[in-house]
């Protein structure tokens, strides 16, 4: 089994990363949990790495001595993916935060894994380039985004993180450094190991460098906020919008309840709260005429689908008044309750309305408050299961029941357990249940090929 860390191991690690190794009591308690995962465990040693070579040396040492290693970025995950559940070494990448190269001939950006999403976006946008993936958590690291294949709010038009990773430098569990993919646009060279690494939640290798694909920055983007009488009416408009062949970057749904939480959390008023439900759509494009044309036809469409009005969100100030609230929903709901868990389920877009209806039914049936919001346009919903005043035992019982019902129904509709937050530790059981023995067997087999000793991020995803 795993080797327990001793003084000599700490000394050896200090030799690899001098001044950046903390042990035992020196490690801050935040390193024992993420933002939601429902599990906490302190690592024995924390190593703040700076280079690929350091990561390689740490991994080689850990491999030789059977020490488990868990990689951690900014710790903003929601499923316990970065928790060292078996103790051992926690490898923190946030100091590897350099943007290494902007290659304007290949339209790529090469970065270290600890670059924060918000810094990356600002860097490229200042230079008129665009990195489309836009998860709500802007203080997450790009390494974390790649590890969970994060999606975000522009997936309807632009896709998810996996669509924007061209190449990766990865340190394998035994310390060997490999390069997967590259600056190439096409690649039919054998198994897609780069794509396998993306979304593997730090269980197959440690990402130490990434080559990202960029697009030219769209000249303009305009959002539309469409109020509807009921959530039902709002959600039912979504399939019609998709069928209309308009390609908004995002179609988000917002409920008044969630907006009020965000107002309270931010201490800022939302520009409109006259309605129970809203759709928030964004259109972007290269010219004013193109964007104007598309927003106008979308606005007309929303009206014809029963929207009470359509508000135009066309300037920086207006965008910030609306999107700041949208970006704060998770934290705002968290602040509204004593404790919560989440369901990041994804269903085919045609079933979003049905699934949201079902959520309400589950809330009533199980007796749990289930506020939610999400990406109506791509079928990825974020449903929060709030403990409120329930005692722990009762909450856990209701939680289990609600999860069973929600994931069960999602599976029936052709959905998946996680749209973008990953499986980590918290959703392992549901992944196993939905994918049966064979698929989990394949995943475990892949894990064994990369990491025969099972040292890297143990206890996650499929193991």
């Amino acid at each position: 089994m795993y080797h327990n860390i001793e003084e000599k191991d700490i000394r050896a690690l200090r030799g690899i990363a001098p001044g950046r190794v903390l042990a035992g009591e020196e490690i801050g308690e935040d390193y024992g949990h993420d933002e939601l995962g429902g599990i906490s465990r302190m690592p024995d040693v924390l190593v703040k790495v700076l280079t690929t070579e350091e990561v390689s040396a740490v991994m080689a040492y850990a491999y030789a001595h059977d020490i488990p290693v868990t990689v951690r970025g900014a710790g903003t995950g929601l499923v316990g993916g970065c928790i060292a559940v078996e103790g051992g070494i926690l490898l923190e990448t946030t100091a590897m935060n350099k943007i290494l190269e902007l290659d304007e001939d290949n339209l790529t950006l090469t970065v270290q894994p600890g670059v924060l999403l918000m810094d990356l976006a600002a860097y490229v946008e200042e230079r008129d380039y665009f990195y489309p993936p836009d998860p709500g958590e802007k203080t997450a690291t790009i390494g974390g985004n790649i590890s969970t294949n994060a999606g975000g709010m522009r997936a309807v038009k632009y896709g998810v993180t996996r669509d924007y990773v061209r190449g990766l430098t990865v340190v394998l569990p035994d310390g060997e450094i490999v390069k997967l993919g590259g600056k190439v646009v096409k690649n039919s060279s054998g198994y897609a190991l780069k794509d396998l690494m993306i979304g593997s939640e730090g269980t197959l290798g440690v990402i130490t460098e990434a080559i990202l694909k960029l697009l030219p920055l769209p000249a303009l983007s305009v959002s539309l906020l469409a109020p509807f009488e009921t959530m039902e009416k709002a959600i039912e408009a979504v399939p019609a919008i998709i069928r209309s062949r308009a390609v908004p970057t995002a179609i988000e749904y917002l409920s008044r309840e969630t907006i009020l939480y965000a107002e309270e959390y931010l201490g800022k008023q939302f520009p409109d709260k006259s309605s129970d439900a809203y759709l928030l759509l964004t259109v972007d494009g290269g010219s004013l005429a193109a964007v104007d044309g598309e927003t106008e036809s979308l606005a007309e469409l929303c009206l014809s689908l029963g929207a009470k009005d359509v508000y135009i969100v066309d300037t920086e100030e207006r965008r910030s008044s609306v999107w700041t609230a949208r970006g704060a929903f998770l934290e705002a709901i968290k602040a509204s309750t004593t404790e919560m868990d989440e369901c990041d389920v994804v269903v085919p877009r045609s079933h979003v309305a049905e699934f949201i209806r079902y959520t309400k039914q589950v809330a009533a049936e199980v007796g749990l408050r289930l506020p939610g919001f999400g990406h109506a346009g791509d079928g990825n919903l974020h449903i929060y299961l709030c403990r409120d005043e329930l005692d722990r035992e009762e909450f856990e019982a209701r939680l289990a029941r609600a999860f069973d019902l929600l994931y069960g129904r999602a599976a029936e509709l052709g959905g998946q357990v996680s749209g973008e937050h990953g499986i980590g530790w918290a959703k392992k059981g549901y992944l196993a249940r939905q994918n049966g023995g064979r698929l989990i067997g394949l995943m475990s087999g892949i894990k064994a090929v990369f990491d025969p000793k099972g040292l890297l991020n143990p206890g996650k995803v499929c193991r």
Partner: protein
Amino acid sequence: MKILACVKQVPGTSRVEIDPVTGVLKRDGVSSKLNPYDLYSLETGFQLAEKYGGEVYTLTMGPGQAKTAVRETLAMGASGGTVISDRRFAGADVLATSYTLAQGVRSAGEFDLILCGKQTTDGDTAQVGPELAEHLGIPHVTNVLEVRLAGEEGAGGNRSRLWVRALRDGLIVEQLVAMPCLLCMEDGVNTPRLPSFRRQKMITEDQIGVMTLDDMEDRDERSYGLSGSPTQVVRMFPPQKRDGKEVWDGPEEESAERIFDLLRERKMI
């Protein structure tokens, strides 16, 4: 209550270029928007009109395309708007601008309350509002945080006066102001409503008036534009960026001491 909100169209982004030869803002090809500070005064106007009854009209001065700014205020809730536009008004400094606006207000009718933003994002002088009030001979208050009718809280119960809370030199001042008056709203005092697509579709051309020199009481060309402007801009240039960065890597206490000394030396503390 009949309310007039003065608005201005400004460049849509902060990335504007200045023509190195003429020193004038390059507006061609740059998208434009309503001055963000004006959104707070507009919203104040809408809320007052909703609360006490009445209507909000808007007034702007600028080239022909400034009509777009007025249309936007109509989509937000204004009942009508006017664009003051004439080649002879071009090149106006703050004094000539406020004089032109005052002439426009006189021609546009009587108002109980005139609302202005704190300043604009392109001119940044914060002078036009107060100067407009002076030209009109009415009282004004700047940096206003909150407004309501004076009768409401029972103190000084005269409904022809407004109760106003404003920032002044680090103090908060509450005062009564007789109407008609002019208020410059502080930024961030409310969340401005968004333009409505439904309202936008219903806008008719007769809701937007255009005024030229010929519509003014004072038709003397010399009062306006460049010739009415005592200010001459000698040169305009973007501020120089200071990229110099110094890194202190010493022990915490030593660095703290150095920061303290530096701040004191620069008279920042």
